[in-house]
């Protein structure tokens, strides 16, 4: 059990309040150096973060109003010096540092961060020279992204007015503090997403500008989102941040880097007066050149006209030649006709009737002569052919079967006219036709029966048998 009983008793609330008072009184203003741990931006806009070193961690908070004024965006790993007061939240009795001011712990820390980021973005190709787009020679509209207050926009407008007044569309942004980066990104993308034919003329070139300041002041132009937006802009973009010696990452990603905002205006537009002079000069040279050209051509023409021979002289030659040729033509025509006429007469002489008659008579005599010689020759030939035919006929007769008949044989044929060569097959009553040497053909019938011995063998209708009977026998049938 407890031995000391004279100690006063607190309620929890009393103790918590007492602690809060002690902490706030003792640490009403502190300056602490440490590394940022986890950083959270709440929806309310308050920023909650951890401040730490190797052994310890303290919670920290930057209220919304203060956060907007920070020159840089708190990032994990960044070494910072924070100023503020300590307090506790009685509900949890946790103490935390309420930060009023915070800055990177020396430029060295930021530079190291910058170098690291630059390497990373360069490795991605965001700074490649081939990404750079040419600026328009004479933009109609220039989009300027900067603070609407301050010297920067005035410097730009002033220099534009001097050189070549154009249409300027200002997209007002914060150029410092926690919200600057997001606004600048929105402005770059906003200009790019304007339609070509919308009520708002899409700028032909963009200028992102800010005046000089510390590295912390310019920090938003090192933000990765801003660098990426500048690199991704379709509209050519000129960066003009700080003074000539200040270099931020947007300068590497932009298409042109201007040393100052005034310089950006000079890069963006040519000098109108010079252009007017150029156009005037070209215009007067144009008129002069045409005039001289026409003058020169006129004098060339004059020279040619003077050098031109007289028309009569040009024609004289031709006319003489014409005369000469037409003379020769008449002569040639006459000669030609004469020659043709001579030939015609020669031919006509050949056409006289006497000559024709003579030719006819000559032909007739020749024909008579030929026909006279033709008749004896024809007779001779005819007699010779007759003799030959007779001779051939005799030879033919000597080979005829009729000669055999003349020697007493008869030709035996059946009724169909076929020659009968064998008698044994002939039946009784069969009709036969017998042809004799005097061409007479008589019919006979077989009447003997081979079975009857009395049959007269002389009647056998065989050629050989028919040879023996006298010719008169045939007549007996």
């Amino acid at each position, binding site marked *: 059990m407890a031995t000391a009983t004279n100690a006063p008793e607190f309620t929890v609330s009393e103790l918590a309040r007492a602690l809060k008072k002690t902490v706030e009184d003792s640490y009403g203003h502190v300056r602490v150096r440490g590394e940022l741990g986890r950083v959270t931006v709440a929806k309310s806009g308050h920023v909650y973060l951890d401040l730490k070193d190797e052994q310890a961690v303290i919670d920290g908070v930057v209220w919304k109003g203060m956060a907007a004024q920070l020159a840089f965006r708190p990032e994990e790993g960044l070494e910072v010096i924070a100023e503020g007061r300590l307090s506790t939240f009685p509900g949890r009795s946790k103490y935390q540092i309420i930060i009023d001011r915070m800055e990177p712990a020396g430029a060295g820390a930021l530079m190291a961060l910058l170098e690291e980021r630059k390497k990373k973005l360069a490795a991605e190709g965001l700074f490649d020279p081939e990404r750079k787009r040419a600026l328009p020679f*004479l933009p109609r509209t220039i989009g300027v992204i900067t603070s609407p207050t301050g010297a920067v926009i005035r410097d730009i407008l002033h220099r534009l007015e001097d050189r070549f007044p*154009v*249409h*300027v569309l200002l997209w007002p942004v914060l150029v410092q503090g926690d919200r600057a980066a997001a606004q600048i990104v929105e402005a770059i993308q906003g200009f790019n997403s304007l339609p070509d034919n919308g009520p708002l003329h899409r700028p032909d070139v963009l200028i992102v500008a800010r005046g000089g300041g510390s590295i912390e002041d310019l920090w938003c132009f090192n933000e990765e989102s801003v660098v990426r937006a500048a690199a991704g802009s379709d509209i050519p973009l000129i960066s003009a941040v700080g003074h000539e010696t200040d270099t931020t990452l947007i300068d590497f990603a932009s298409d042109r880097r201007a040393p100052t905002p005034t310089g950006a205006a000079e890069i963006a537009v040519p000098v109108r007066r010079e*252009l007017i002079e150029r*156009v005037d000069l*070209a215009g007067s040279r144009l008129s002069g050149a045409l005039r001289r050209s026409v003058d020169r051509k006129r004098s060339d023409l004059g020279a040619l006209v003077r050098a031109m021979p007289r028309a009569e002289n040009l024609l004289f030659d031709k006319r003489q030649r014409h005369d000469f040729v037409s003379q020769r033509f008449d002569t040639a025509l006459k000669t030609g006709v004469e020659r043709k006429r001579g030939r015609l007469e020669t031919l006509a002489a050949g056409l006289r009737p006497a000559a024709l008659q003579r030719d006819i008579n000559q032909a007739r005599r020749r024909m008579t002569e030929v026909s006279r010689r033709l008749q004896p020759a024809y007779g001779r030939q005819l007699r010779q052919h007759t003799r030959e035919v007779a001779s051939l006929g005799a030879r033919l007769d000597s080979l005829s079967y009729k000669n055999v008949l003349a020697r007493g044989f008869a030709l035996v044929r059946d009724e169909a006219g076929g020659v009968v060569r064998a008698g044994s097959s002939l039946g009784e009553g069969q009709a036969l036709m017998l042809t004799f040497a005097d061409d007479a053909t008589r019919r006979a019938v077989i009447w003997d029966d081979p079975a009857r011995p009395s049959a007269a063998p002389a009647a056998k209708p065989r050629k050989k048998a028919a040879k023996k009977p006298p010719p008169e026998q045939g007549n007996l049938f």
Partner: protein
Amino acid sequence: MSDTRPDDIKAMSFERALEELEQIVQRLESGEVELEQSIAIYERGAALRKHCETRLKDAELKVEKIVFGPDGRPQAEPADLDTPG
């Protein structure tokens, strides 16, 4: 005077128009252009010159500021900046 610029010149950028004008001047000055062609070229040069002059004459500083309408879309209104002069 009515605008007699050909359409292709109307659409031409100032820079290209000026370049072509200067080329035309050089060609005409060289004297190597035929008469009829030189007149046509001159007329084109005159149109280009007019185009350039119009563009130069139109130059006027007009400053507008982006504001956001109730629909959240950007729109322009005349900028009331404390510009000098």
